[in-house]
């Protein structure tokens, strides 16, 4: 089962607050595997309060796995993830629920519940977790819908929305409780350039107006360079480097350069093995 809220006692609550009061998330020596396949190797990363951190990498670099670990959707094979000083891998269920209410997650395809209308989807966290009046809930949901340019879509069902709209609806739901930290999985995937730019601007505004910390997982360079305070580059499960946009642009690591210049990886091949792979099974 992928749900990893453990009913264990509160051990390992390291108090990071005294030294790093601005650090929201600390990832220490994180390694993660799917069965035998090692996906992440010894990742060390921090997320500072109020920053926009972009996690970048090509396909298969492990960025989705890193995100799933940060969200507590899977357990790492080793290492720890500290959220506000608490190790989410060992925290008990009620503590995890409290932490989750400070997180908003916008999934790649929106991940709206198909049986609820767009409006009901967005209102769901409020109805489940707060005692707010229904009038207040309605206005809050509509404020977010207006923000996402989805004003007239409140009563539609998810199946009636386009991919871009689903994404924006998912984002509206993710920020409905004004979370402390917002995670955004591939915001630009499947969007036209204009909408993508609008979304970038929205992300920047959310950070400024709502003092939100934002973690974006993406492979879109333009987007990353527009919004990021810091960029973390992943390659084959390893964290290659972290730095500001300028630092990344001037980085001398070959893998980073290839990523930025979008050159295909020049794979050095073993000629004999390559030939035998190509001709496997031939008589």
């Amino acid at each position, binding site marked *: 089962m992928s749900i990893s809220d453990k009913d264990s006692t509160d051990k390992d609550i390291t108090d990071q607050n005294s030294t790093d009061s601005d650090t929201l998330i600390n990832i220490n020596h994180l390694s993660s595997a799917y069965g035998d396949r090692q996906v992440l190797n010894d990742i060390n990363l921090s997320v500072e309060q109020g920053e926009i951190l972009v996690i970048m990498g090509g396909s298969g670099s492990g960025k989705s796995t890193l995100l799933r670990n940060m969200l507590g959707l899977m357990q790492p094979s080793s290492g720890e993830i500290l959220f506000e000083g608490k190790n989410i891998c060992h925290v008990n269920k009620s503590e995890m629920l409290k932490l989750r209410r400070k997180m908003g997650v916008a999934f790649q395809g929106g991940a709206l519940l198909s049986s609820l209308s767009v409006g009901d989807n967005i209102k769901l966290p409020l109805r489940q977790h707060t005692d707010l009046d229904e009038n207040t809930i309605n206005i809050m949901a509509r404020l977010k819908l207006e923000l996402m340019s989805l004003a007239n879509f409140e009563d539609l069902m998810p199946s009636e929305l386009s991919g871009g709209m689903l994404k924006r609806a998912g984002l509206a739901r993710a920020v409905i409780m004004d979370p402390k930290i917002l995670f955004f999985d591939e915001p630009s995937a499947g969007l036209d350039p204009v909408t993508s730019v609008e979304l970038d601007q929205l992300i920047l505004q959310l950070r400024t107006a*709502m*003092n939100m910390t934002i973690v974006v997982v993406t492979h879109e360079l333009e987007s990353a360079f527009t919004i990021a305070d810091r960029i973390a580059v992943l390659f084959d499960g390893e964290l290659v480097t972290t730095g500001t946009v300028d630092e990344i642009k001037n980085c001398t690591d070959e893998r980073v350069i290839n990523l930025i210049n979008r050159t295909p990886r020049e794979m050095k091949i073993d000629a004999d093995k390559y030939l035998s792979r190509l001709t496997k099974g031939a008589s």
Partner: protein
Amino acid sequence: MSFDCSEHLHYKVLHLTGEVDLSNSSKVRQCLLDILNKGKSVIVDFSELIYIDSSGMATLVEGLNIAKKGGLTLTIAGANGAPMQVLELTRLNQVFTIVDAVSDIGE
């Protein structure tokens, strides 16, 4: 967060101090609705407000709607910093009447 009420001319002034969020916006709502139900126009004083979230904003929107229906007014005074940015982000700065200070409001 704390809030208190005072009077300015024929208005009731609701001073918001600190942060209005999910934990306390219902109280603000109750106070605001009480004032409006008594038929008084309201000035919401933002000058000491550090932060307001969507639930707080929604409360003010509801208040404004009720005020308009009852022929009353709801004005925001002294918005600055993060609360002002929220008003701009949500485009509510084009919906609410916003003044610099409570004293700017005449008869």
